[in-house]
């Protein structure tokens, strides 16, 4: 029962018997602290735990690490990597990771930073040996060389971040992953090197073959329209030309007058292929394709890593689909 007739001074010693239900509730705090002191997680696994923000990075780590690593991809291949929900469940693999692979160039800036803070894992913080930013080892394109402003749209200040569509960049990242894995798991340095060499050979074959094939296409067939300006690395690899983008500025939704301009550009140049990643809206592109008697190439956002697709397969399949459309 409540005791309201106690001493009027609140600073006196607490009275016995008063407000037991409230005092007991403070016990909850005690239980919480007791839990904190008793339990400590020790992920006992011999494999190096790798977390990759994107499935393509995960596929690269899998190719280089093989059975020595356990790889988790956070984003799904059919998901726009700019707008991933930073689910709290991502904290589980992140908190246990030995190595975190990020795409960098601000691609994950909308969802990764709070996860990284909350994962409480010093091993994978920027600057630690378990944090690898792939963009630091590739040749970056579209790096702004003058002052940029958001009025230009959602420009990435460090350069275009979508470099994993180019297998030559993928190979550079794989080399960096192998080097980093060797640092974390020194006992298997030789094996990582062997696996990297095998991967490098397979990927270079596919890449060179695709480059030869695309080079034989006539100039007129090598021009495309994109939805978002995310394919500059792909075009650089295959010698293709982007003549227009459906988004008037990166990240700004298409509007009718801009799309009319795109249509005019397409007709003038005789371009008939629109290429976009699978997570961009289709309706506008369908209309444009109909008006120009052209077609749409739905580019895969990433390797179907969870279904076992490798990076080499993913590059081969993407370039084949694109070649098929362009060579019509």
């Amino acid at each position, binding site marked *: 029962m409540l005791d309201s007739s106690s001493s009027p001074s609140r600073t006196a010693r607490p009275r016995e018997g008063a407000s037991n239900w409230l005092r007991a509730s403070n016990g909850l705090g005690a239980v919480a602290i007791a839990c904190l002191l008793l339990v400590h997680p020790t992920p006992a696994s011999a494999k190096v735990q790798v977390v990759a923000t994107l499935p393509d990075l995960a596929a690269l780590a899998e190719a280089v690490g093989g059975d020595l690593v356990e790889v988790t991809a956070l984003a799904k291949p059919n998901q726009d990597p700019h707008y991933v*929900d930073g689910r709290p469940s991502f904290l589980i693999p992140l908190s246990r990771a030995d190595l975190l692979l990020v795409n960098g160039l601000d691609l994950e800036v909308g969802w990764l930073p709070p996860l990284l803070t909350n994962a409480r894992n010093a091993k994978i913080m920027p600057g630690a040996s378990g944090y690898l930013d792939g963009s630091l080892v590739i040749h970056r394109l579209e790096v702004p060389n003058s002052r940029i402003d958001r009025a230009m749209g959602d420009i990435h200040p460090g350069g275009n971040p979508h470099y994993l569509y180019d297998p030559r960049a993928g190979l550079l990242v794989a080399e960096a992953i192998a080097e980093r894995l060797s640092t974390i798991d020194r006992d298997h340095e030789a094996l990582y090197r062997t696996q990297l060499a095998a991967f490098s050979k397979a990927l270079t074959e596919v890449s060179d073959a695709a480059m030869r094939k695309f080079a034989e296409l006539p100039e007129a067939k090598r021009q495309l329209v994109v939805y978002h300006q995310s394919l500059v690395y792909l075009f650089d690899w295959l010698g293709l030309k982007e003549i227009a983008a459906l988004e008037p500025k990166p990240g700004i939704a298409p509007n009718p007058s801009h799309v009319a301009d795109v249509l005019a550009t397409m007709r003038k140049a005789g371009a008939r292929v629109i290429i976009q990643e699978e997570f961009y809206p289709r309706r506008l592109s369908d209309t444009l394709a109909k008006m120009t008697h052209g077609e749409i190439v739905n580019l895969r956002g990433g390797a179907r890593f969870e279904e076992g697709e490798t990076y080499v397969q993913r590059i081969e399949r993407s370039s084949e689909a694109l070649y098929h459309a362009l060579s019509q």
Partner: protein
Amino acid sequence: MGLTSVTRLIAFLSVCALTSAPASVLGSVFASTSTSTSSAGEVSDVDRALIESAFGASGDGDAAGQSVGSSSSSFASFSGAIQSMNPEISLILDAAAAYFDGEPMQLGGHDPNKTGFSLQQLELHMAGSVDPFFRLDANIVFALFGVEVEEVYATTLALPYGLQARGGQFLTRFGRINATHPHAWSFVDQPLVIGKFFGSEGNRGLGAELSWLSPLPWYFEVSLSANNADGECCARSFLGADDFEVRGPLDLLYTTTIKQFFPFNDSWSLSLGLSGQFGPNASGYHNRTAIFGTDVYLRYRPVDSAERSALSLQAEGLYRRRQIPDGLLDDFGIYAQLVWNITPEWEVGGRFEHVSGVSDDPLDPDWTRPRRRTSLEATFYPSHFSRLRLQGSYDEPLFASQPVYVAMFSLEVMIGAHGAHSF
């Protein structure tokens, strides 16, 4: 008797540990985490233990973070990007125009609260890593005639065992909406129950927090914080505006939460939270207040939706018990909101609120009967960095003579760093 003293002791110890851990303890803790990662064959465990004990004995804080045996080889060097030690800075403006067809009864400090234009807030957010062990976050809010340090706290980055500590001025993690700022809200104004139970700014204060990410295979996080229990804006169910000297651990405000997350599949997920808050209140006689809360967030976002559409249901229920000189006051409040992101540009939502009232409430003497409010909103996002929101509310305080119709139009724009939102 036994329970009380044990609780006080533990609470006291935890506060001491958070605020005054000696550098040597921190140093050895940091060192022990990083060593476990290295797997160099050349250095035996015995060697390592010897080296570590040398560091521990010297109590050299500078040794923190240096891992024994791990390679510090330099990797690919940064080429070309603009390097800067400046923190991330962003500036967010929330301004609104509102119309009330009766007496405005808004509770939130950033709510439009009169017919006409209002500056809800101008928020300056700055954040960055301090060193490998801490990051600092500051939210400084400007009104037309004043500045307020809404939040400024340091967060640890390298504690072992899934622990993380925060210290400074911060919004407590009670429930879902309390820890967030207006620019993360789906409605222009603050839920009534938050304003009534915590205050116009939500529950916050100077204090320290320890949270723990459990090793369970799903997200299960426990947090406990101790904050000053005063502030009319921020702890009105506790000491409020009362000028009060803290004499012992029971004079602080304790908040404890359990948060869980269940991803059913790539598209559906559910967050569940339980929160409790305990502290002294301003009615004297060692009287105390407890607030219990539960929150639910059910989200459907088809992972491959080209329109990035999403549907989310968020609801919180809070129950409050206060001891007052003449007895015990019980009241509760809920809000539930359903928000549909149709496309990246368009969003609509509805919110229902119900907050009960009690007689003889020293804080809200008029609030003797329930108050209900229903709101609808439609938002247009020209880009990721701006939004225009139209909101209509039907506010029905059963203790007042008339319901009030409210229309609000708000503009939010943001410059600077691209702030990420927590889920």
